[in-house]
């Protein structure tokens, strides 16, 4: 294994930092949606009180709760006293939130947010690392992500957080299978484990007007991935591990301050991650419909020429837009649906999604063999 030359490493590091900032920004946007978007859905006002010295109120501006979410909440989270419950395993209690956060943030580096662009004579791949086994990396990070939550709940020396941890880890390992099977179908369709090549393979149109996105090739895999992804992030309707009406905060109930912020960040960042993965696998990633290297080729036959750099920037914007739309969709699902009971959840995972995933893999294989090559 030879390491890439230094300029590429620097570019990769910068792209990784950019990706992390985007992930954190999406997490903050989701947090804002939790306060104000949920208020919109539930026909109430939500947070609108925080202001700096009453400046906004005196000027007569309506308060959208931005200061609440972006300044007041983080400051509150990080300045709270960080207590460790009596009888808890101190080392594991301190380790668990960051063990939960690290795999989620580490997966963002393999997601391509743009095409390979050529700027000033050099070509940059808009993806922090170009792993040719990126899908395996993603699956391994999801597998390791179980530990932080399981150990966080266990190390709190609290019966109910242990219950939340057991539920969470059982749920996560059950839905990892369905997730993996949906991904296998996608990998079979595109014939590669590399995410950037998958995005490349989703360019072009069928019959002149339908973009070749993954959602049209693998609709069932998309539904399975969406369900399993929401179950992995333990959001409603799969939030029995948190179970706000039963376990208060489930596995993270004995955490406060920065560690609780780490758990919340895991939750929100994982939502953003699932949205980005859905975008990459099924919505064409950074592909804009009808946009090629030299411009728009519209179905009517019209051609709008656009410079190459603008094409790349449009791709990045398209990726962000798709991710944000999916994040908002997940947020709406969260505030609309009731929660699954535990046996219903397990039944859905093992008796519902797993056979569906297997059937999808078999049908995909059959279609690939019959039509000789990937569609």
């Amino acid at each position, binding site marked *: *294994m030879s*390491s890439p030359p230094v300029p590429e490493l620097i570019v990769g590091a910068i792209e990784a930092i950019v990706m992390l900032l985007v992930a954190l920004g999406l997490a903050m946007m989701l947090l804002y949606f939790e306060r104000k978007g949920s208020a919109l859905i539930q026909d109430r006002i939500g947070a609108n009180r925080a202001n700096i010295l009453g400046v906004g109120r005196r000027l007569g501006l309506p308060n959208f709760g931005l200061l609440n979410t972006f300044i007041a909440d983080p400051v509150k989270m990080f300045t709270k006293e960080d207590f460790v419950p009596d009888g808890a*395993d101190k080392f594991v209690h301190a380790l668990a939130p960051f063990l939960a956060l690290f795999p989620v943030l580490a997966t963002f580096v393999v997601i391509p947010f743009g095409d390979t662009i050529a700027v000033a004579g050099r070509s940059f791949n808009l993806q922090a690392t170009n792993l040719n*086994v990126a899908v*395996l*990396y993603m699956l*391994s990070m*999801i597998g390791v992500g179980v530990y932080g939550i399981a150990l966080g709940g266990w190390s709190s020396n609290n019966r109910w957080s242990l219950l939340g941890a*057991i539920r969470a880890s059982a749920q996560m390992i059950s839905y990892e299978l369905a997730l993996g099977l949906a991904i296998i179908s996608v990998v079979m369709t595109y014939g590669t484990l590399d995410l950037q090549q998958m995005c490349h393979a989703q360019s072009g149109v069928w019959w002149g007007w339908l973009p070749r996105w993954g959602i049209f090739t693998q609709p069932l895999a998309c539904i399975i991935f969406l369900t399993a992804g929401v179950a992995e992030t333990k959001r409603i309707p799969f939030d029995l591990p948190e179970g706000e009406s039963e376990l208060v905060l489930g596995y993270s109930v004995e955490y406060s301050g920065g560690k609780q912020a780490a758990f919340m960040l895991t939750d929100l960042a994982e939502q953003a991650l699932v949205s980005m993965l859905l975008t990459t696998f099924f919505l064409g990633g950074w592909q804009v419909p009808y946009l090629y290297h030299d411009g728009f080729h519209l179905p009517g036959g019209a051609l709008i020429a656009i410079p190459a750099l603008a094409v790349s920037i449009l791709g990045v914007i398209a990726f962000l837009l798709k991710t944000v739309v999916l994040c908002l969709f997940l947020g709406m699902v969260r505030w609309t649906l009731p929660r699954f009971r535990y046996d219903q959840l397990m039944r859905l995972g093992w008796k519902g999604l797993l056979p569906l995933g297997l059937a999808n893999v078999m049908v995909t294989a059959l279609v690939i063999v019959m039509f000789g090559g990937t569609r």
Partner: protein
Amino acid sequence: MPPWLFVFLAALSIISALGVILQRNPVHSLLSLVLTLLTIAVLFMGLGAVVVGFLQAIVYAGAIMVLFLFVIWLLNLQVETRSVATGHLALKFFGAIAAATLVAELFAIVTRAPAGAGATAVPSGYGSIEQLASTLFSEYLVAFEVTSVLLLAAIVGAIAIARRPAGPVRPGARSA
């Protein structure tokens, strides 16, 4: 793989392996074992077996160890309070001597392996998933099919063994 990376990973794996066998708290032993497994996974990737390294992280560290963790919770294992110097002392003493002898023998054998063998160039695409799949499904096809039957047998066997015994509870027996 650069030598400094190998030295670092080797030291980390030996320290965490020692942590597995020397720690009192079973959950800490499990965490040390997970660290060892992930270190060995990185060693695999360094030796060119990229797919097998990721599979080690997914299957071994991500699934089998979670199973261990569940069993530790189920049995509600506490931190061991007895010191090591109890029980069959003779077994432990001679066991330590036997282990030391084994270490010496293994070292003597393996470090006399043909030197310089690590510098051979490997064919391109070594360790890629295409090569792994083509070898697995051509030369080792029978083993692959037998392994799938083995997994099915293991699932059925584990459920049959670990299931609560059906039937009336006998008086005096521990209510499971």
